[in-house]
């Protein structure tokens, strides 16, 4: 079934996070969750903090990773994800993520100007993504 596979690359500023063939990729874009197979129309979209799910083959086990903010370029037979941060579940520090979650929630409740609110929302999203992966 090699015809169904496409090239997937996930790159962060510090390393090439993932490179290989994949059957389907699910991710969280700014417009909502999408899943992409081969021969998708060309599309560039912004990523929000979310879980990236990589299906390496149809029906096979999936790989999950936390991806925070970035861009994805989808072409007919390749997908390139440029992420500012990307982590495998085993790289996530659960304790730190929990602390970040509590901190972000406190900031949201205290209501300190709009700029801080946006930042706290992003921080909360990141923390929730990390926590959802380490359960």
């Amino acid at each position, binding site marked *: 079934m090699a015809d169904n596979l496409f090239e997937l*690359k996930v*790159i*962060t*500023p*510090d*390393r*090439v996070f993932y490179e290989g063939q994949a059957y389907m990729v699910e991710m969280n*874009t*700014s*417009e909502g969750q999408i899943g992409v197979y081969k021969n998708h*129309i*060309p*599309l*560039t*979209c*912004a990523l929000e903090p979310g879980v990236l799910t990589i299906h390496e083959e149809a029906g096979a086990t999936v790989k999950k990773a936390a991806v925070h903010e*970035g*861009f994805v*370029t989808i*072409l007919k037979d390749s997908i*390139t994800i*440029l992420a*500012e941060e990307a982590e495998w579940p085993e790289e996530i520090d659960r304790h730190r993520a929990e602390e970040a979650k509590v901190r972000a929630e406190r900031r949201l409740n205290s209501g300190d100007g709009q700029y801080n609110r946006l930042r706290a929302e992003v921080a909360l999203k990141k923390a929730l993504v990390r926590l959802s992966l380490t359960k």
Partner: protein
Amino acid sequence: MATMRAIKRRKESIQSTEQITKAMKLVSTVKLQKARARAESTKPYFEAMYTTVAAMLAKSGNIMNPYLQSGASQKKAIIVITSNRGLAGGYNANVCRLVMESGIPKEDALLYTIGQKGKEILSHKGYALASDYSEVINAPLYSDAAAIGKEILQAFADDQIGEIYLAYTSFKNTVTHEPKLLKLLPVEMDTENISREEQLTPMNYEPEEDEAIGRIIPKYLCSLIYGALLEAAASENGARMQAMDSATSNAEKMIDDLTLMYNRARQSSITQELTEIIGGAEALS
């Protein structure tokens, strides 16, 4: 001829200097290898980012986006990346000279400095300083680059500055480092290198093209700043390694010369003593 004691003291002082320069050379060699590996690991990200942005701009040639035009302000921001410490040959001076000779008038320039040395030299010359991030150059992180990029883009959005430049030392290889001045904003890109096939592929954008450009360009800038930081760190260590290497070989040469002088002085003093003894003995007999 200088006395034997004076020569010996001078030789010892040069020897201890040589020990220091030798140690510094070894340290910067190790640091260079590390910095170089980091600079290389960020290349794939930057290249992918560059192709994406270039393709985007090539296809949307006539789009009006604030990031693609000079701001109203006359002020030009320059991010200057130098080192915190000296003893690196012409490394810092070259970057500063590049800024001074860039044709940007002193009154219009607003500096964002990274590295103590550049900050000292340029503020002494009368350049205005907006802010300083000297502490990040020792171990640059992506979040540092993002913070710098954010502040500078905020200033651009508030019309405090009209254009943004970046002055740093690009790392070619261990022996060649080249000071460079890049124009960051408004974005100017060489779109001719993109293949025809890529230009013809219609691309859809989510969110809308205009908003997508507005979101991707700040990221592009941050990746440029981050890449420049890492390359500058590698260049700094390369420059220091070279400077210390030539200092060590100079010291070795001086020690050789002084050893020769010392031996001559020793021999002539022995000869003199002998002549004196013989002369004295002859006078007695």
